[in-house]
């Protein structure tokens, strides 16, 4: 065994010792860390892995950005490209077309639609350009079919219903483009629903009348209703209004980490009754409450106290030197990171409260997602390793990584078929 491999084993054994575990079989009890990692990676390779939320279309509109090239996330900030999806064993992903909330009038709506279509078209163009390694996926089974071909499945979602404007017929236009889920609202209230994070508070008391008609149209077409970013009332309204199970494409558990974007135990239980799924996200603030960083805070205070010259009198050179010092200080005292352990803690909790059939993964890469150990698409197998370490079986991991989402997706399509039959009869 090489020196590095011994260290590797030591680190992982140590982690094993402090991790919470499910019951293990006799052979798993005697398994070395190397064997465990090998077993986990084999499971990761066999199951369909689906990430339901990435804001990568924002990257695709960056001129010159090539999804076929591997990018260094610590140089470029980019978290997803096709080579890294392959490296991480990520089989399928939903690229979300995101348009920031702006003025809610006819001009604003028209522009939002144009921007949304630009994003969607950029995803479609990317799949066409890279058809040797990826394929545009429209139906649940497409992910499995593309996996068999050795290609990554690219699904399309919309984050923020703003580009629907006040015209429900836009929903069908987006469906025809390939959109298979719509997040009703983003960080501010829109015409459809209330946001969890709008400083003005609730406006519609959850989902508006127009939003209800959008949900109904999504049911008719077979588009998944996504309640992430909505306030709690949006969740309860969606449960009541939607004829099909719903999803939270990127949300975590509130009793593990207190955050208004996360879901309470009551909501998790209702999600289970609804047959829907909560897709766990890799946003540090939703995964753990940031611990204090006293060493950095006191070093920062000391550095600021040492600035004696008024900022307005500093030369450009002096400012640049000071900026460099602050940047160095930040590097010296990094914030304690969120880790894959936090991810598994949330999964454990959701499984306990809602059951194994109602949890999945939606990393929010390129939208702020990325933690230590799951920093980008190339590292998602570390989630599987941690789940195996905690005693999750292959069957359970298959559900978490994609089975649950695909089940909901199929049910959403089945409801759409039933609704068409009802109309036709």
């Amino acid at each position, binding site marked *: 065994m090489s020196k*590095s*491999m011994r*260290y*590797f084993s030591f*680190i*992982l054994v140590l*982690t094993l010792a402090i991790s919470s575990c499910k019951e293990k079989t006799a052979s798993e009890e005697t398994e070395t860390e*190397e064997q465990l*990692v*090998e077993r986990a*990676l084999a499971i990761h390779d066999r199951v369909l892995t689906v990430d339901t939320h990435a804001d990568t279309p*924002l*990257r695709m*509109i*960056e*001129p*010159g*950005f090539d999804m076929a090239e591997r990018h260094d996330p*610590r*140089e*470029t*900030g980019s978290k997803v490209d096709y080579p890294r999806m392959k*490296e991480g064993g990520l089989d399928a992903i939903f690229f979300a077309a995101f*348009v*920031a909330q*702006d003025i809610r009038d006819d001009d604003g709506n*028209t*522009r939002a639609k*144009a*921007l949304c279509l*630009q*994003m969607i078209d950029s995803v479609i163009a990317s799949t066409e350009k890279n058809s040797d390694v990826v394929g545009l996926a429209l139906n649940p089974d497409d992910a499995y079919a593309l996996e068999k071909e050795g290609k990554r499945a690219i699904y399309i979602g919309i984050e923020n219903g703003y580009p629907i404007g006040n015209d429900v017929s836009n929903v069908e236009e987006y469906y025809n483009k390939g959109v298979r889920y719509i997040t009703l609202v983003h*960080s501010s209230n829109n015409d459809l629903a209330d946001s969890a*994070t709008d*400083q003005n508070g609730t406006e519609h008391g959850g989902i508006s009348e127009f939003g209800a008609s959008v949900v109904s149209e999504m049911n008719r077409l077979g588009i998944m209703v996504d309640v992430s970013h909505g306030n709690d009332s949006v969740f309860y309204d969606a449960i009541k209004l939607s004829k099909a199970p719903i999803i939270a494409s990127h949300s975590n558990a509130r009793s593990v980490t207190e955050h208004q974007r996360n879901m309470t135990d009551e909501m998790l239980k209702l999600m289970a009754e609804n047959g829907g799924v909560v897709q766990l996200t890799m*946003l*540090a*603030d939703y995964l753990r409450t940031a611990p204090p960083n006293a060493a950095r805070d006191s070093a920062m205070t000391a550095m*600021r106290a040492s*600035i004696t010259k008024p*900022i*307005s009198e500093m030369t450009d050179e002096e400012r640049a030197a*000071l*900026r460099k010092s602050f*940047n160095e200080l930040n590097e010296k005292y*990094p*914030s304690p*990171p*969120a880790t894959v352990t936090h991810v598994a803690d949330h999964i454990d909790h959701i499984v306990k409260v809602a059951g194994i059939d109602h949890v999945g993964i939606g990393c929010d890469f390129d*939208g*702020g997602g*990325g*933690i*230590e*150990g799951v*920093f980008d698409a190339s*590292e998602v*197998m*570390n989630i599987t*390793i941690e789940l195996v370490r905690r005693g999750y079986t292959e069957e359970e991991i298959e559900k978490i990584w994609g089975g649950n989402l695909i089940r909901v997706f199929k049910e959403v399509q089945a409801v759409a078929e039933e609704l068409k039959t009802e109309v036709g009869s």
Partner: protein
Amino acid sequence: MRVLLTAFLLAISTISVAHPLRLSLCEVEYVPKKQLLTVNLKLFLTDVNEAITFDPYSKELAFCEPNEADNANTLLMKYVNQFFYVKANNKKISLKIKSKKLSGEGENTALWIYFELEQHDPLKSLEIKNAVFTDLFFDQNNIVYVHAKGESKSLMFTKKTPVHQLRF
């Protein structure tokens, strides 16, 4: 073995730090009827304070507050001009603040800076640089929405690609 080595590197990684989304928004609009080019920059206030005063929670400049510092706009524009410009028909526009406002609360407080510029000649091209806060954060994303000639377009600006050109 390659996979195991990858896992090893991940297991001992101490470099990774959780990064929230580093984002700014900007809208550039050409209004030919009014012969105007408008620019609306929306920046997180904590980022602005960090960039100018080296303290995200500084009250020193008090943007848009009754006690706003006399030199707040000067310092703000000194920073903005260093990292942001708009060229219309290859001519760099002189940015003068027409208005500014705050929106949101706490960490989510945004500072909006509005510029309005006369554009008498028909707009044929735009060149935009938006590298705000790339001096602070390596993963800063600056989205610019451009509305001109009946079309809307999104552009993404990063530290690596801080300048984009559009022709009409």
